[in-house]
Structures are given as structure tokens and as C-alpha cells.
């Protein structure tokens, strides 16, 4: 798996993350509020997160070789006493295939080993199969919530589940398998075209 490191999100990271927040697949798969807000508003929100919201939300920058920024992870709904939080990801489009699974693993490792979190809560909109296949999502979900989010003109159904360290090890194996499946499919399609 490629090497990914986690560092604190800084004010210098804000412009690139705003770009990601407005990327079409991000807006459909996570949340589309960035399309409705100007740069100044988005920047102010993120500055507030960096400078004030340490107890309730934190953003991290995920880096690949030579410190190149691959994307971001952020934790919300932090319950320090219960050692659980919701963990979300936004990987830059050009790095999704190569680094997606490694970035997820690195973020999980950081919040468990350094922030002492025991359980993470995951939310994935049902149509989003970028990191989790539809079959795997159906197996993992503990709650299925219709009309959970309205993104890019459509109501979306969300799947929620919790994840312990043991669950994570199993899910990372599945994620790697999913990545192989997609790579095999692309290779097969390319061969057919030739």
C-alpha cells in the first residue's frame, strides 16, 4: 500500500480544499454547501475550525511521497470521553485510485494511535461506491436512512455504521479487493477497445 502521512490542516491548505469542496463528485457524494457559498465564507469557516473548534471538529491533511497533498480527512461529532467520532474523507480526484485506501488507513491509524479514538462512525450516501462497493455497503450498514441528504438536486439515502479496530482491518482488506476489481475491469475494457 502506498505511504501516506497525516499532518495538521493549515490556513495554507484552505484554497485547495475549497476547490475540492466544489468538485462535482464531492458535491454529489458528500455535501454541496460549497457551491452555495462564496470563497470568503468558506475560508472563514475553515479558519474558525483551525483556530477555535479543536474540541468538536478537526481537519487533517493527507500527504503522499515528498509531502504532496492527496486530500483531507476530518473528524466531527467528537466524543472524547466515549472515544468515538465521525470520520470523513475528501481525496483529490487525481489521487483517488492510487491513494484512496492508503489515505483511509493512515487517517484511521492516526486518530486511533494519537487521539485515542476507539470507534469511528461512518456515513456513506448509498449511490457513492468510490471507496465502498454497493454490496459491501449493504453488508456493513447498521442504519439506512432515506432522505438523509439533498445533494445536487436529489434526495440521497445514507448508510451509517460504526467501526472498531477489528472492523477496520477487515474493511481495509475489502477496500484493497475492491481496488483490484476496478483495476481489473478497467484493464479488461481497455483490452476490448484495442
Amino acid at each position, binding site marked *: 500500500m502506498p505511504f501516506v502521512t497525516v499532518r495538521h490542516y493549515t490556513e495554507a491548505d484552505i484554497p485547495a480544499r475549497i476547490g475540492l469542496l466544489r468538485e462535482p463528485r464531492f458535491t454529489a457524494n458528500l455535501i454541496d454547501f460549497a457551491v452555495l457559498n462564496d470563497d470568503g465564507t468558506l475560508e472563514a469557516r475553515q479558519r474558525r475550525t483551525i483556530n477555535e473548534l479543536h474540541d468538536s471538529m478537526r481537519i487533517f491533511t493527507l500527504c503522499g511521497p515528498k509531502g504532496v497533498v492527496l486530500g483531507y480527512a476530518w473528524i466531527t461529532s467528537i466524543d472524547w470521553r466515549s472515544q468515538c467520532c465521525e470520520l470523513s474523507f475528501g481525496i483529490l480526484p487525481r489521487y483517488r485510485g492510487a491513494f484512496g485506501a492508503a489515505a483511509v488507513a493512515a487517517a484511521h491509524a492516526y486518530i*486511533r494511535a494519537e487521539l485515542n479514538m476507539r470507534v469511528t462512525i461512518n456515513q456513506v450516501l448509498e449511490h457513492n461506491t468510490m471507496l465502498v462497493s454497493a454490496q459491501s455497503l449493504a453488508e456493513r450498514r447498521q442504519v439506512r436512512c432515506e432522505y438523509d441528504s439533498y445533494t445536487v438536486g436529489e434526495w440521497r439515502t445514507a448508510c451509517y455504521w460504526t467501526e472498531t479496530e477489528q472492523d477496520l482491518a477487515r474493511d481495509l482488506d475489502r477496500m484493497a479487493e475492491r481496488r483490484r476489481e476496478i483495476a481489473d475491469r478497467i484493464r479488461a475494457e481497455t483490452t476490448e477497445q484495442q
Partner: protein
Amino acid sequence: MTGTTIARLDTAAAVAGLRALPPEAARGFFDLDPVTQNDALLAKEIDRTGVQLYSCGETLLGCRPNPDHPRQAQVASTSSAPEPLRALLGSLGTYQRCTSFFALVPQDSPVAAAFESCGFGRVGTLPEHLFHSGRYRDVVIYYATRGDTCLS
């Protein structure tokens, strides 16, 4: 600046100094942790706790008077070398009339060597007091009077 000249740091300079250190030297320095705290949170914690920070060459030093005993100070260093710590203790004795010192040092921290060289004794252990790198770690309590440090 010589190896034993200490200079008071403002909060921004202290944060930059902590960020530049290897994690093993910075972690446990007055409960500050550059690995889990961003610059804004480090600054907030420094201001909230009233820690006074100094530099001595590349070493960061800190002290915080005990509010219940103004002649006693909690001290910390990021170096295993005794000279910077000795310079801090001398300054605290001279300018703040401190008569005793204590420190909380993570178990197995290389910084412990500086305290032992400066006459500090291990007076207790806080079991599993600190968490980082995936497990809980003991913290050792060091104590010295001004006489123990050979500064009187």
C-alpha cells in the same frame, strides 16, 4: 547566543520552536503535543496554562510557578543535555527566588537524563498517565530543592 544563555520566548516563537522539534523531544513538555495539537491549539494551551517559555540554543525550556507555593516551579526541557536546564534553574533562583522545582517526564524520555544530571530525584510515578503512539505511558515525577541542584 551561547549554549547556556536563555531568552524568553513569546507564544508564537514557542509554538514554532515546538513544531520544529522531533516529536519524542516535544511530547510531554507541559502537556503540549505538536503531534495532536495544531499551532492554534498549542498557542491557546500555552496562554491558558501560563507557562513561561525560554530558548537556550536549540533547546526549549519552560516553567510555571506553583500557585499554591510561589517559590516552587514546575520546569521542563526538550533536551537531554543538563546545561540548558541548569541555566533555567539558575535564572529561576536568581530572578524569581524559586527554592524548589518539580517536573513531569514521560517514562523512557531522553530528557530524564538532564534532570538526573541536575540533581533531581525520582519521587513518584503516575502510571499510565499519558497516551500517545498507540498506548498509555507512565510519567515520572522529579523533584529537587535549590540546594540539590548545586545552585545555592
